């Protein structure tokens, strides 16, 4: 009788992206829970302190170099491909996400790897509509370089499954949060500390979030379950939560951080009004750079010139929105936070239409397929996930 799963214990496995957030936690659990013999392909050793706490093998290399990947994959039974490009220009990101994935799959085929788990993303479905979303929904390009290149990489993975019979399982996690999460923990806290976060439509939109350990449990299941082969699985928490609750969880950790409710219509109106005034150019370009790099943003935002510019920038917002914001900010209790002055100084960031749409959508990601075929069962709801995230954030000096 054919076994439907196998044990990772003592097996040599490769993790790409192991110095990152999801890959890093995967490395930890592979060692701690499965006693796997873990190898990590490391591009930059400066990012290795967390995984270096474990007895693993680190191989220097880059997923964009086929030779490096072949060397790293050699001798491994399972490959977890978590590396992705989030630096450099669009071409560089595409190179890492698409060609990097192709290199990993080619090397895995050549080395007769038993299983490849490829970490894709919910974003391959493009702008998601309200209502239920499952894996039969059409994949769509959205113009977002990360999402589009992940979609291309996913297609290459399906090619390897169909044409070469490579044993690949694809996971499409939603917003992964938890300790060390760069986007859905560190950035959110940073934004709440440095700006007035806008809740689109009062934060009524749905946030399909998954706690890091649930995402990693799904990855591990995809590595051992035979039924995972050739399939893609959406991975999220048991139920979506509202963005109000998600951001609210972080705001509570900080004691308080004022958030501003603005309707999607108002935000879009403001966006197009700004566009008409041709205020783009250096200001808009700078803002987009600052949005992408929280470290630079934080440093620049502290300079007196930027504080002044931000004040001036605020005056560019259409009058009704300005008044609406003033009312809302003004109506908040001053007793809730000691530094009222600095709270008032916080800038308000403009939102692009895709971002407005992202936060306004009421998409419900269904995880029935992962439950049925992988035995995936989220163990964390928002409350328990946020509790651990808060303990970590306090320790990490982020609160």
């Amino acid at each position, binding site marked *: 009788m054919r076994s439907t799963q196998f044990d990772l214990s003592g097996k040599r496995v490769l993790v790409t992206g192991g110095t990152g957030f999801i890959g890093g936690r995967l490395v930890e659990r592979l060692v*701690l829970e499965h006693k796997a013999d873990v190898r990590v392909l490391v591009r930059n*050793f*400066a990012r290795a302190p967390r995984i*270096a*706490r474990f007895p693993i093998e680190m191989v220097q290399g880059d997923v964009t170099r086929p030779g490096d990947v072949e060397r790293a994959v050699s001798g491994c039974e399972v490959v977890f491909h978590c590396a992705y490009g989030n630096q450099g220009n669009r071409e560089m990101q595409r190179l890492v996400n698409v060609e990097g994935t192709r290199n990993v799959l080619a090397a895995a085929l050549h080395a007769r790897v038993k299983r490849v788990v490829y970490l894709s993303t919910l974003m391959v479905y493009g702008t998601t509509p309200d209502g239920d979303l499952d894996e039969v929904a059409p994949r769509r390009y959205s113009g977002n370089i990360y999402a589009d290149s992940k979609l291309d990489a996913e297609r290459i993975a399906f090619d390897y499954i169909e044409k070469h019979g490579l044993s690949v399982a694809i996971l499409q996690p939603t917003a992964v949060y938890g300790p060390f999460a760069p986007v859905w923990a560190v950035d959110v806290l940073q934004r709440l500390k440095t700006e007035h976060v806008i809740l689109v439509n009062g934060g009524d939109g749905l946030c399909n979030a998954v706690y890091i350990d649930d995402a990693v449990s799904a990855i591990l*299941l995809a590595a051992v379950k035979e039924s995972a082969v050739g399939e893609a699985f959406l991975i999220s928490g048991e139920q979506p939560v509202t963005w109000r609750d998600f951001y609210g969880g972080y705001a509570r950790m900080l004691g308080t951080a004022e958030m501003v409710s603005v309707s999607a219509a108002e935000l879009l109106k403001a966006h197009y009004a700004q566009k008409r005034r041709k205020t783009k150019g250096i200001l808009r370009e700078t803002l987009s750079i600052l949005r992408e790099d929280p470290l630079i943003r934080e440093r620049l935002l502290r300079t007196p010139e930027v504080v002044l510019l931000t004040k001036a920038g605020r005056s560019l917002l259409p009058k009704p929105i300005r008044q609406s914001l003033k009312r809302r900010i003004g109506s908040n209790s001053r007793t809730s936070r000691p530094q009222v002055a600095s709270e008032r100084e916080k800038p308000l960031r403009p939102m692009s239409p895709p971002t407005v749409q992202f936060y306004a959508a009421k998409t419900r990601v269904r995880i029935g397929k992962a439950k049925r075929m992988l035995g995936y069962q989220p*163990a*964390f709801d928002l409350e328990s996930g946020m509790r651990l995230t808060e303990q970590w954030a306090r320790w990490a000096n982020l609160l």
Partner: protein
Amino acid sequence: MNKLKLAIVGCGAITQGIHLPVTALSNQVEVTVLVDKFLPRAHELADKYGVPVVADEYREIIGKADAAIVSLPNYLHAPVTIDLLQHEVHVLVEKPMALKTSNCDEMIEAASNTGAVLAVGLVRRFYGSSQFVKQIVENGLLGNILGFDLREGIIFRWAVASDSMFRKEAAGGGVLVDIGPHALDLLLWWLGGYTSVEYYDDAMGGVEADCELHLRLQCGASGVVELSRTRNLRNSWIIRGERGTLEVGTGFNPLIRLKTKNRDVVLAGRVARDGVADKTIQDVFRRQFDDFVDAILSHREPFVPGQEGRRAVELVETCYALRQPSKQPWMFLEGPRHGALESALP
């Protein structure tokens, strides 16, 4: 006057970023040999700085150099330094001077036997701020010292040229053996010896990224030292005395705040020498290097000799012997909650 012939053993990031630029500024020294087991790396740096000889084996410097900077993976500090000292080569060894106190003793003995200078690269002793704190504490401005608190951590960005500092067998440990010697050396230098220590870190078969020490000192003060490679911490010392509190940043030219007790007076400023503050970390390394060279030429002890470097090694060694795991609740999952995964595995 003939220039001292200097070899630099180990061509890692610190040699490229600090030692070569700093030694190039000295008119008393000529770098004659660069050693690295990876010769192309040595050649690359030798070409840039006009160093005539490269070698992939440190023993080739014997007879070719009067002095050496040893900047190798930690586990090699002791054996290479001892060998060089025994061949009367003066050595400035990077911190930690060794991984064990027994090795420190052998290094000190080798220097003593041959008369060669052994200096330890605890560069923070050369910070103007460190020397200022030493003076403040010694002249009693703070009164008896009651407590201290150091939180030092940045999300690691050091441009490491290899994985040697992350391999336990090469580095001997993680952040404790990396930043620890600097921090603990200053603590012991400023406030004197310790009587007890509790130590916690997060290593799980590899090298720790974060650690915490709870110390009690002979002077009666107690406090915490927390070091991190994964977090941006406060990055300052707070030293609390009967008469006031001193806060000093951990960087090379930090702001120093002195708060007097029961008075709402806070004095703040930076340390300068003759009105000039250090502009870059290289300025500090230059003082360290000049001290090493002067110790050789003047036949005197360097500012941080082996006996001084040994103290931090002893404390690090004690910490590892007493190690307890850090409490990080997000690290370990509760079994029953992850029943699905466990039941999926044989």
